[in-house]
């Protein structure tokens, strides 16, 4: 059984039919990349999985860890073990770096102390110290408002805060390389690789095909709301036909 499974998912923004039957799977421990042009439905797929509205999922099923999460509220999807690094990072720009990280601990308190007490799971997100070790620049900037960070630092913070969430099994990232200098992109991709190496499954949405396929085990190509191609990273790299779906 796959960790994440989408089965014929149809999602709508109002009357617009955006996802037209998306089916895909992510196995435990994999790095899977979801590729496609702007407007292909990548972010809509992520939001559908996250239970964020809009869009509205009108048919199809989304399973995570064997449980149907199609109709769950966003916060319950997250608590089931999915973390999100959204498009444009969406940090809380008026809060300090440390406050941004502390927010992820709150869910741990309210829900997971109870879970831990009755022995359901061990919700061990990373501590602040562990995160600062991973991203030293964040420790230097911990008292600074998140809005004052550079693009690269913001992306680091956006990734770091997901690591503070309890028992994350799947990390979904939406265009983490967007708007970053090539050198910074490499740092971000390395961070994602480190997280994956620690056992977290990754679903990576990217327009930067080259960077994504360097990291990914497998990939899906989305066009006009449908999966038009799937294969290993190797196969995707060698498939010339894909250019029609990927070039902007």
């Amino acid at each position, binding site marked *: 059984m796959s960790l994440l499974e989408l089965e014929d998912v149809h999602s709508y923004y109002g009357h617009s039919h955006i996802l037209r039957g998306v089916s895909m799977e992510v196995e435990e421990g994999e790095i899977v990349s979801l590729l496609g042009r702007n407007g292909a439905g990548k972010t809509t797929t992520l939001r559908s999985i996250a239970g964020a509205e809009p869009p509205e999922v009108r048919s199809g099923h989304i399973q995570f860890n064997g449980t149907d999460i199609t109709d769950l509220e*966003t916060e319950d999807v997250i608590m089931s073990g999915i973390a*999100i690094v959204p498009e444009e990072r*969406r940090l809380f*720009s*008026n809060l300090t770096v440390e406050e941004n990280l502390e*927010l992820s601990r*709150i869910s741990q308190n309210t829900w997971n102390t109870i879970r831990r007490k009755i022995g359901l799971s061990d919700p061990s997100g990373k501590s602040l110290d562990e995160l600062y070790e991973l991203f030293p620049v964040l420790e230097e900037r911990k008292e600074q408002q998140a809005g004052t960070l550079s693009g690269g630092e913001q992306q680091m913070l956006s990734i770091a805060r997901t690591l503070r*969430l309890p028992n994350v099994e799947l990390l979904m990232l939406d265009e983490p390389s967007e708007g970053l200098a090539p050198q910074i992109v490499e740092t971000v991709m390395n961070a994602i690789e480190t997280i994956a190496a620690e056992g977290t499954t990754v679903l990576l949405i990217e327009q930067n095909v080259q960077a994504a396929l360097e990291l990914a085990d497998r990939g899906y190509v989305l066009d006009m709301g449908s999966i038009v191609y799937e294969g290993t990273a190797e196969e995707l790299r060698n498939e010339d036909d894909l250019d029609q779906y990927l070039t902007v």
Partner: protein
Amino acid sequence: MSLLESAVRFTYLSLSIASVYILVAVGFSIAFGTLKFVNMAHGALYLFGAYIGLFVAFEYNVGGSLGAYSPVGLDLGFAAALILVPVVVFAIGLVMERLIANPFYERSLLDQLLVTFGILLILQEFVAILVGRGGFSYDRTGWATGTIPLPGIGTASRWRIYVIAFTIVLLAVLYAFYKYTDYGLAVRAGTEDAEMVQMLGIKISRPFALIFAIGAAYAGLGGILGGSLFTVHPEIGIEILIPALLVVVVGGVGSLTGTIVAGLLLGVTFTATTRVYPEMATASLFLLAIIILSIKPTGLFGKEEVTA
């Protein structure tokens, strides 16, 4: 009266009025800035605070449909009212958030405005039907009356000094809630991006309901303090909305600092005009708001415009 004494008198008069404005405006500003909900029924919380305080603390002969049962009231004393009112109005706030605010969060500003204003009118009439349209005033007991000596200057009204001190404590508590509690952190984050807070696994509706109810409790306290400084009658809920709304827009929607600064400005303005030209007291508040908003449309501490 020496010049110094009248300067001191002017200061505590304006600060005590500013205190009431701020206590009422804070909740309105939170609901507007954080929950994007414009709540004219907030005035009813002030009204309830004043009336509940009145009938918890004392007994009165009333008009209206309860008139036959006069005197009405628990007669528990003023201190008991100060403790009970925030608790009761906090609970009313929780109910209001569930039943009135919650169904209208996603609606337009105009819908919210019309519906909540209608509710304010209904609640105001409800109070009038129960106890009549006549006015009441608080008979404050010993510890809350009289004057306190100011060495070398003269005396100051004891109760007005208490009102100011009480408000400072309440604002410090609110600040600490925002700054040092998990709920406060979630509310601050939710003010910026509520969906992202949910994407961190937090059920934002709970901190939001809590902060709404805290704002309600503060308005209720504003009601009992304002009621003790001015008079109490069914229209006070609407009347307090004028300065409270002006404080919110002048200070900048959603800004605690802005609410405090604007409350002080309006309190001083109101007291000063009342002194020299009482008929223009309320108008002077509008004038001040017009001047400040034409210079800075988002209010003194407003970050961005709130869109409908």
